[in-house]
């Protein structure tokens, strides 16, 4: 539009958009103002056009309706409204707007297909909050449709992926849709040399266990404790002392400290995927190196030497401030991981995962309920126990349910039902517990885990090797044929599809050249799983490198939360 404009943002979108566009860029395109979407009258702004950037959600449509209806008709010049749906234009929403009588107020209604957002050099996410819930509770496969579309886009850019493997119902659906889309656009055969050799589609419900366990990598723990949102984390400010001298007298900051976390930061790239127990020694080593580097200034005698030193200064300073930040974060985390409760919780998790006492009521869980620990923590543990026992004995399940309802309120019966529907919490169907077989065959529990200098992916959970990543690992070598039996025990079909490439594009692999596999987690992936895949990428004789895509970055807490029934806030 030629004239100045204002954007009204659905707040949820600002995070992902912040990753791909900068304000300066928007400004070049005459975006004068930006507001967050909220009910009431729109703020004053001397612009001709108002553009709503929103997800297609009905509750947001209500807010927009309110905004539009309150717009002062008499004002001049009149402002024009436009609406941009992300990622899809929704007929349902438009219908809704029509019923409210405001649809006509919008001059343009368009969509902006933001399917896969790059989060890091090897990580893409759709940031679709409800994907798991929609797929497994509501049987709404829209997010799978977007996933398939995203994959088609990716193939248009990086070449057709010759091999597709998958496990799970949703994986099957996505593969079907991709094949169908390809058939419907025969012209889509592109002439790009394929970057990816293999696509692996994995359903989250094939591995319900992994997200429930507490992640023990550095990044995983930051996420577990503080929650990483669109690569940003907000931390309590106390440990981040004022930056400069002379500000020492100032009061401690009260605003949370906000940091961006990605591999652009060298130190973070090095430690993010390590087991937290291995982080301290790296930090102390780095401190010594940097400290020595700064010391060198005393030895710089000649102008040349001084010049050399000065030229390194910016880098050294960046490294120093990065080190300071991560030392503070590590301290914050250490306070938590050394607490008694963290230890007890972890002990119980590890007992369940290694198959100890999964068939009876657990004392620690009971104690936590009695002390009214957060409900989500309880649910994580109970679900973990259920998954590790292929379902709980009816008596045990009933006991937990009763305790939870009596302590946290009967209305949570709805949440418990959701968890049952998703398969996270269930009565044992037969007397047979498959988990021990799965655990042994896939070597999910490793007793001799090396946290400092790992030789197996199980380091990310200090003993437990994430099932999902094990499947990826075994697919690369020796192949899934070796684990047919176990694959049959896990839910959903497993399959292989091939996409023909024109002869000219077929890869002739150089000796020692790695294969590249794109692993797509349908329903969410945790940072610990990402760490495990990166670990496999780095293995010297691994032979496979991984790029990761997902519908959403999750941890046990955010995941369980997405399955909980939205309850009215407590009356006070």
């Amino acid at each position, binding site marked *: 539009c030629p004239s100045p404009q204002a954007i009204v943002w659905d707040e949820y979108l600002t995070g992902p958009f912040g990753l791909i566009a900068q304000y300066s860029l928007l400004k070049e395109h005459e975006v004068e103002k930006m507001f967050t979407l909220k009910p009431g009258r729109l703020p004053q702004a001397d612009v001709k056009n108002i553009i709503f950037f929103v997800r297609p959600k009905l509750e947001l449509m209500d807010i927009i309706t309110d905004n539009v209806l309150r717009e002062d008709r008499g004002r001049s010049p009149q402002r024009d409204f436009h609406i941009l749906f992300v990622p899809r234009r929704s007929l349902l929403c438009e219908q809704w707007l029509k019923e409210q009588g405001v649809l006509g107020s919008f001059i343009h209604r368009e969509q902006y297909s933001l399917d896969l957002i790059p989060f890091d050099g*090897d990580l893409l996410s759709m940031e679709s909050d409800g994907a798991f819930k929609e797929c497994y509770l509501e049987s709404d496969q829209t997010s799978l449709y977007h996933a398939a579309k995203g994959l088609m886009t990716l193939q248009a850019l990086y070449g057709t992926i010759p091999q597709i493997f998958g496990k799970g119902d949703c994986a099957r659906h996505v593969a079907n849709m991709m094949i169908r889309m390809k058939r419907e656009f025969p012209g889509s055969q592109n002439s790009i040399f394929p970057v990816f050799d293999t696509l692996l589609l994995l359903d989250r419900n094939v591995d319900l266990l992994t997200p429930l366990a507490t992640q023990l990598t550095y990044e995983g723990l930051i996420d577990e404790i503080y929650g990483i949102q669109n690569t940003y984390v907000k931390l309590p400010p106390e440990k981040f002392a004022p930056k400069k001298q002379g500000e020492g007298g100032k009061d401690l900051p009260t605003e949370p400290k906000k940091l961006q976390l990605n591999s652009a930061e060298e130190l973070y790239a090095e430690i993010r995927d390590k087991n937290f127990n291995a982080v301290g020694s790296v930090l102390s080593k780095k401190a010594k190196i940097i400290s020595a580097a700064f010391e060198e200034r005393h030895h710089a005698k000649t102008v040349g030497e001084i010049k050399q030193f000065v030229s390194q200064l910016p880098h050294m300073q960046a490294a120093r401030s990065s080190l300071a930040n991560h030392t503070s974060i590590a301290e914050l985390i250490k306070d938590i991981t050394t607490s008694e409760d963290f230890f007890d919780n972890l002990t119980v998790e590890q007992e369940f995962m290694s198959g100890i006492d999964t068939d009876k009521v657990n004392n620690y869980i009971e*104690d936590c309920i009695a002390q009214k620990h957060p409900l989500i923590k309880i649910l994580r543990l109970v679900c973990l126990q259920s998954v590790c026992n292929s379902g709980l004995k009816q008596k045990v399940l*009933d006991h937990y349910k009763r305790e939870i309802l009596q302590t946290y309120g009967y209305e949570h019966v709805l949440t418990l039902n959701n968890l049952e529907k998703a398969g996270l919490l269930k009565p044992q169907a037969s007397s047979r517990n498959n988990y021990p077989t799965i655990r042994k065959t896939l070597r999910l529990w490793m007793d001799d885990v090396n946290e400092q200098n790992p030789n197996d992916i199980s380091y990310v959970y200090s003993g437990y090797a994430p099932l999902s990543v094990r499947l990826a690992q075994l697919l690369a070598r020796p192949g899934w044929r070796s684990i047919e039996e176990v694959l049959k025990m896990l839910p959903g079909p497993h399959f292989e599809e091939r996409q023909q490439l024109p002869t000219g594009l077929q890869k002739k692999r150089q000796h020692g050249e790695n294969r590249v596999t794109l692993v797509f987690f349908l329903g969410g992936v945790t940072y610990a799983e990402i760490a495990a895949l990166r670990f496999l990428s780095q293995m010297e004789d691994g032979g496979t490198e991984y790029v990761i895509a997902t519908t959403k970055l999750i941890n046990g807490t955010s995941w369980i939360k997405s399955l909980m029934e939205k309850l009215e806030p407590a009356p006070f």
Partner: protein
Amino acid sequence: MSRARADEEEYWHSSKFRAFTFDDEDDELSQLKETKRTVNSLRGIDDDDDDDDDLERVSWSGEPVGSISWSIKETASSSTSSVEGRDSSLQKGSSSYAAFPKQVSSYSLSSLFKGRNKLPSFQSLSDALSDTGVKNYAPELRRPKAEYKDYSSDWSPKDTVRRMQRGKVCSLERFRSLQDKLVLLDEAVAGHDGNVITAVLIFLKRTLRREILFRELEVRQVALCHLIHFLKETDEQKLLLDLLRFLDRSEEVALSQYREHLNIQDVEKRKEFLKACIGLPFSAEDTSHIQDHYTLLERQIIIEASDRHLEKAGQSEIFQRYPRKASILNMPLVTTLFYSCFYHYTEAEGTFSSPTNLKKTFKIPDKQYVLTALAARAKLRAWDDVDALFTTKNWLGYTKKKAPIGFHRVVEILQRNSAPVQVLQEYVRLVEDVETRLNLATKYKCHDVVIETYRDLKDRIQLTAYKCKVERGSAEEEKINSILNNT
């Protein structure tokens, strides 16, 4: 920060693999502290870090869009490459990704993105902003011929669905016969796009008789799920329940109806609603929970009315000393029990608000009851009540201390409520496991218990060592001395 990028890469590259070969085995915490000290000591030298650059802040008229402006500022100031790239961002879309990290994995998307002319998301964002009239922002694959035709009213069901998937408006009205409508629905389902499926369902819902719609959906599970989801979203409770009933999904009907109570603010109405829910076809297990939910709210209403009155009248001592912080309405059962143990502990079992009555009505397990009562009485520092809670008399009249939760838990709870040592040690003494007992006694300075335990263990060394933990010239010291002398 990125000025020395090249150097930086080399520098870090060389040190990259050392990460796996550390030798320090020191205690982690002290290591962290030391690291921090080292880092802090370096602070004096630099004076950059000034992130405030000239980038203009967005003026929000009081309502800042936090994250995007913030991230804009951050990325802009930390990466020159992206700033430079801005001007040419349209022809060289990958520039924005140059700001994207160098990878842990040697494979990185940033390298993948390089050299591509058309970076879809970037391109389209700028398009979207420069010209909202541009029809298609999405990175579309090549479109079929049909797409270029002008508006036509003669789309096949398949084309209609495909158009809708592209976000184009289509009139569905021309699908008149049931046959046509169902073909349309099946096409939509085959496309897996929930948006389109829902749109078609809305159309069918409007134009088909209910029985026919239900009947046809029964054999189309995917579409059925979407309709159920849609009805839930839009709160069309009545139609939803009809549908679920038609499908014989009685439990879902029950839960779905029960969910409604959350929208009822008025407690009396909510209570009546819950009462009506009891008869619904829940699973046996859930039925008893719903029944309890109703009974609990009924109780709470009675208790609330009477207590509010008591509190206002100012006659009751307990309410004056400990004014209620909130109403008890809609609180969970255990919270209610705590409340009743706090304010109504001594009441006879006959009253609705007495703890024993609650315990009986809701079949609260002993363990749960004792824990809650203990916490409540300890909070009031009513140590006699605490004592009575664990005292049982056998038929000969001997008293005995018993706890269904283990005395170490009792000690913890008492300690949290800052019980005096005299009270505490009485329960520490009852902890059966010797090691736990010693630990607790030492932790909470119950000297007598420690001393007696060592005496019983005949552990002279520990006992002697413990002497330095008690005060000089105190009764405890004397006690230790006398034990040491007597053996």
